[in-house]
């Protein structure tokens, strides 16, 4: 992390340590590929294992501008540690450079984030929905997507006396 700060001081917006001792860094969206390349290829870092990534919709959090955060977890087998990166994007222009050219493992995760948060990844070779179907409207993990807003492909049989989980009904 220190090396990243040293190399690209302008790329790092903020750094902090969470309660469990995990180090975080918030990165500018534009410099994400640069930082990731350094993390991956620097012989002393070698964060080659793409752990995972996901989005966070900060709509209901205290600090919610820009609205979305995308979290990257990388792992270095050499140093046996995780690195946690964050990129913040606004609702108006939800797009980030894709890491798929760098990490092939990022392919499906980016599709997942696109599927559930509607954040675009520029340069992704095949940005389709992954878990949901193509006809699905909206992005269900956004906080403004109601819990019970159902979009069945095949009409559901109305069953009146079944309680379909918690939360308020999105429609009807």
């Amino acid at each position: 992390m220190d090396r990243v700060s040293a190399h690209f001081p302008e790329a790092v917006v903020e750094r902090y340590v969470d309660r469990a001792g995990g180090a975080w860094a918030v990165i500018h969206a534009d410099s994400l590929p640069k930082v990731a390349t350094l993390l991956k290829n620097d012989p002393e870092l070698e964060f080659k294992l793409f752990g995972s990534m996901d989005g966070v919709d900060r709509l209901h959090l205290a600090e919610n501008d820009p609205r979305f955060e995308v979290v990257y977890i990388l792992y270095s087998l050499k140093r046996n540690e995780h690195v946690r990166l964050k990129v913040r994007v606004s609702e108006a222009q939800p797009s980030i450079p894709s890491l798929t050219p760098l990490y092939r493992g990022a392919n499906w995760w980016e599709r997942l984030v696109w599927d559930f948060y509607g954040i675009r990844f520029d340069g992704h070779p095949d940005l389709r929905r992954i878990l949901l179907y193509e006809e699905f409207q909206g992005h269900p993990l956004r906080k403004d997507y109601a819990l019970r807003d159902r979009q069945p492909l095949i009409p559901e049989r109305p069953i009146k006396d079944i309680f379909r989980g918690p939360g308020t009904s999105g429609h009807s």
Partner: protein
Amino acid sequence: MADSHTMPEAKGHNPDTDGSLPPEGELESHLQAKHMVINMGPSHPATHGTVRLKVELDGETIVKIDPEIGFLHRGFQKSCENVTWTQCLPYTDRLNYLSAMMNNFGFLNAVEKLIGLEIPERAQYIRVIGSELHRLTDHLTCVGATGLEMGGFAPFLYGMEARELIQDRVTELTGARLTTSFGRVGGINRDLPDGWADKVRKTLTRTEELLVEMDGLLTRNRIFVDRTKGTGIISADDAIDYGWTGPALRACGVAHDLRKAHPYWVYERFDFDVPVGEHGDNYDRYLVRMEEMRQSIRIIRQALDTIPTGPIIVDDWRIALPPKPEVYGTIEGVMAHFKLVMEGIQVPPGEVYDATEASNGELGWYLVSDGRGRPYKVHVRAPGFPVLAAVPHIIEGKMLADLIPTFDTINMIGGEVEQ
């Protein structure tokens, strides 16, 4: 038969041949072979859970494969965001339904990290025992299914017998065979039953016998070796690039195991080995799993021998339910119980990424709390997800029959991949 299936465009006109002969493309079209696109799944005997594989075949060779997942999507994250932290637990059961306890404990571990909580030692031991028992069932199912889908029914049933014995022990411990919902934030909700340790020891002995049988039926079986050795190969670099973890990565020769790299709970107290493969093929993945089962048995034996007495859950009424006499007898107990049940555990705002070694690899949790008693964000890094993502890379250009052992040995679990 292997050349393209697009018709070559007839370019230009030749007055001599136009009209008398059909255009060139049409002449050749008699010999053209089209690739056959078949649709395996979502309901197909070899796709564990429900995965749809669009496979483009040239004869028996796979030209292109496109896994399409999501048929088992249940909205795990959205569900978790709307219930209390404790109520998330049953949802985590359904991620990897073959080893539910590991998911339970992984999630709880992450929540405890988020709170900054240290759980009692006995609870840590029970978590280790439960995890390893379920690692055994998971690997047994995987290895058995590998044998089954290659036509050997006997190893599968030997595996099932051992698995059922372990499930019986799990039932005695947790009350459920598969969806255990075991453990609570801060520890474990019930202690080991009386005489359970001895029963487990007996079960492990029988499991070892059955492992020997499976080993004898498969490991040196010429047909099995031919089917698995050299098929489904992935190099260590590619595997890392795709984000593989767990036995599948170790079969490529990378000795990475979170139990050794970042020992959590009491794993550093036990003596066990991390088996490592060499070639990254199906056979190595099979061997690694077999060996891991033996190591799991070792760990459980050691844990049962050295488990200390003591409390199994933290004595903090903001996190753990108060003991029943307190609830019935004191006003503080009733209050704490009521608040905990109705409002849930008040996890302070913050975020954490924490990972444990589940049966198929790194089970990571990224949790965000806004301090309101419900998770703000529950991200799960299912170990099967990156593994499945690499299937097209492994299998393209190989034979259709290789797809099956590959799919078996990477042990894709629909529940965790499709959340």
